[in-house]
C-alpha cells in the first residue's frame, strides 16, 4: 500500500494550517470513473483527540487509489498546524472557519466536498454541516452522534452531573492542570493509554491515578505509528487539543441560533459496538429509536461494527474505507 503523502501548508482564518494530501494517479482517475477528465471528487477527513491527520493514512491510500482527492488537515492546535495562544480561540466556530478557509483555498470557493469525521472531527463535521450545508456533498461520520442544541444542557455541567469531577472532560477544564499531569506521566504513556482504551465505560482520570500497569500495543497500532504521534505531541504539548474541551461551553453559548436546526446533509454513521461512546447511557436507544434520524433527516444508514472499538477506522481500515467509498459512490 502506497503510504506516501504530499504535505502542504496554507494560511486560513489567521492560522497556518498543515494538511496531508493524496490524490489519484492519472491511471486511477480514468479507471474508477467514467473516463472523462474531471477534477476528482474531494474528501475532507477530520481527525479527533488525541490524534492527527495520520489517523487517516489507510483511508487516504485506499480512497485515492479509487479516484478521490483526499485531504486530511491537522486541526488547529494539533501537529504541524498553528496553535493560537488564546485559550478561547478553539470554539467550533473557529475550527469550522478554518475548514471553510481550507476548502476555499485548496478546492475552490464555490465547491462542495465529501467529509469524513471521527471523534472531535465528527463533532466539527456536524457543526460544519449545520453552519454551511452548502459546502458539504455528503458525510460519513464515526463514533459521535449529533445531538441537537439544548438550552438546558450546558455541556460541562451535564458531564459533571453524569460522571463526576474525575470524568476526563471535567479534568481537562482547568487551564494548565492536565498538561502538568500529562508531562509527569510522559507523552508516550499518555498517548498509549488513550489510544488503547477499550473499556466501554467513561474515561475517569482521578488525581493521583497511576499509569504503571503495562500497556501493550493492539494489532492495529505499530511502534512506528506511536512514534509518529509521540513526536508531534511532544513538540507541541496537549494544550491546543485540550482547549477544544475548554471551549465546549463557549461553543454551546454561541449555538442558540441553531436551536432546533436539523443536519440537512446526507449522512452515513458508523460506530463500533465496543466504542465507549456507544455505551454512553441513552445513546444506543437514541441511535436506533428514530430520534437520531429526526435530527438528521437524511441519515441514510447506521452501521454498528461488531467488536469494533473507538478508533474504528484504524482497527478496521479496509472495512471503513469500503463503507466510505460505497456511500460516496451514490452521489
Amino acid at each position: 500500500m502506497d503510504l506516501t503523502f504530499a504535505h502542504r501548508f496554507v494560511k486560513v482564518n489567521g492560522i497556518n494550517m498543515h494538511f496531508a494530501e493524496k490524490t489519484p494517479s492519472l491511471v486511477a482517475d480514468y479507471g474508477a470513473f467514467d473516463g472523462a477528465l474531471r477534477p476528482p471528487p474531494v474528501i475532507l477527513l477530520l481527525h479527533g483527540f488525541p490524534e492527527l491527520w495520520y489517523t487517516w493514512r489507510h483511508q487516504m491510500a485506499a480512497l485515492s487509489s479509487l479516484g478521490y482527492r483526499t485531504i486530511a488537515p491537522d486541526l488547529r492546535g494539533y501537529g504541524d498546524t498553528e496553535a493560537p495562544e488564546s485559550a478561547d480561540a478553539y470554539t467550533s466556530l473557529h475550527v469550522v472557519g478554518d475548514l471553510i478557509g481550507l476548502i476555499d483555498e485548496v478546492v475552490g470557493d464555490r465547491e462542495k466536498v465529501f467529509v469524513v469525521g471521527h471523534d472531535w472531527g465528527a463533532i466539527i463535521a456536524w457543526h460544519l454541516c449545520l453552519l454551511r450545508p452548502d459546502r458539504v456533498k455528503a458525510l460519513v461520520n464515526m463514533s459521535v452522534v449529533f445531538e441537537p442544541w439544548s438550552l438546558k444542557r450546558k455541556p460541562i455541567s451535564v458531564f459533571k452531573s453524569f460522571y463526576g469531577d474525575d470524568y476526563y472532560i471535567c479534568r481537562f477544564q482547568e487551564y494548565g492542570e492536565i498538561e502538568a499531569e500529562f508531562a509527569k506521566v510522559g507523552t508516550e504513556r499518555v498517548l498509549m493509554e488513550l489510544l488503547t482504551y477499550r473499556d466501554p465505560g467513561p474515561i475517569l482520570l482521578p488525581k493521583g491515578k497511576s499509569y504503571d500497569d503495562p500497556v501493550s500495543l493492539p494489532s492495529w497500532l505499530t511502534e512506528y505509528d506511536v512514534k509518529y504521534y509521540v513526536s508531534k505531541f511532544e513538540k507541541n504539548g496537549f494544550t491546543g487539543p485540550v482547549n477544544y474541551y475548554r471551549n465546549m461551553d463557549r461553543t454551546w453559548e454561541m449555538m442558540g441560533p441553531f436551536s432546533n436546526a436539523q443536519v440537512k446533509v446526507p449522512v452515513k454513521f458508523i460506530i463500533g459496538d465496543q466504542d465507549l461512546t456507544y455505551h454512553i447511557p441513552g445513546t444506543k436507544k437514541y441511535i436506533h429509536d428514530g430520534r437520531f434520524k429526526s435530527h438528521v433527516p437524511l441519515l441514510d444508514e447506521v452501521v454498528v461494527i461488531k467488536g469494533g472499538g473507538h478508533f474504528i477506522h484504524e482497527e478496521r481500515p479496509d472495512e471503513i474505507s469500503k463503507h466510505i467509498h460505497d456511500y460516496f459512490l451514490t452521489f
Partner: protein
Amino acid sequence: MEHRKLRGNGVDIHVAIQGPSDGPVVLLIHGFPTLWYSWRHQIPGLAALGYRAVAPDLRGYGDSDAPSEISSYTCFHLVGDMIAVISALTEDKVFVVGHDWGALIAWYLCLFRPDKVKALVNLSVPFSFGPKDPTVKPIDVLRKFYGDDFYMCRFQEVGEIEAEISEVGVERVVRRILTYRTPRPLILPKDKSFWGPKDETIPLPSWLTEEDVAYYVSKFQEKGYTGGVNYYRNFDRNNELFAPWVGCKIQVPTKFAIGEQDLVYHFPGAREYIHGPKFKEEVPLLEEPVVIEGAAHFVNQEKPQEILQLIVDFISKF
C-alpha cells in the same frame, strides 16, 4: 396589541404582538438606540392586513433582560434570541423586517437560518457589513478611517459613554439622536459639544411627538444604554466568530431601503456598494434598492406610511 415575555435563549424577551394568531408572522427588529416602539406605525397596519406583527425589545433594551456580561451580546446571542422568539410563536418560516442593528441581526439570521425566513425587508444597513476577513479587527479599521471620536470607537471603553450620557441627561440624548439629520459619519468629540448647550431645547420634527420621546426616555432611564452599547463592544469578537460564513451569500428574497439623508448612506463606499454590482452579488435575491427621498436614519418612524406600504407590497408576493 398585547405585550408578552418569551423565554428561549436564556433571557426574557419582551414582545409587542398584534394580529390574528394564525396570521403569517412578521418579525420587526429595531436598532440602536430605539425599541419595539419604533415600529408603532407599522404594527397595526400589518395586523389589519392579517399578518401577525411581532416586535421585540432586543436583549439589553426596554422590558427585555439585560445580562451583565459584555460577552453575552455577540451576534450569536442576538440571533439566538430571535430564533427563540420565532420558535415560541410558529414552526413556519417568518417574514423579517430589520432597521439599523436590527437589519444587521436580520442579515445574520438569514445567513445562519435561511430555513426560517420567507423574505426579508431591511432598512438602512446594507450587507456590506457582512462577514469579511476574520483576521481583521473592525474597531482598528474604524479608528483608522474615522478617528477615535467616531461614535463606535467612543462606545468601546466600558462606562465612558454611559457616564457622558448620564451627565448630558437621557432626555437630551434621545432628542438629539432621533433628530440627527447630518449626512455624515457620527462623530462625538469628548468635549460633549455634540449634544449642544444644556439650555437650548431641541425642537421635535412633525413625525415625533412629546409622548414618543417620553416613552423612549422612560425606558432608557430605567435600563440605561449599556445593553445597546455592548453590541458595539463585540464587533471584534463577532468578526472572529463569523469565519465560517466568509463568502456566504444571503439566499433569502430581500428588499432594501434607505433614507436619502441617512448617515449610513453617506458612509464612504456605501452608495457604490448599494447601487453597484456587489450588493446583488452577495444577495442574489435582492430587489432593486430603494432610496427614500427626504428621509434620514430613523426612516420607519419618519416615513411610517411609505415604509408600511413598502413592507406590505413586498411580503404580499410570498
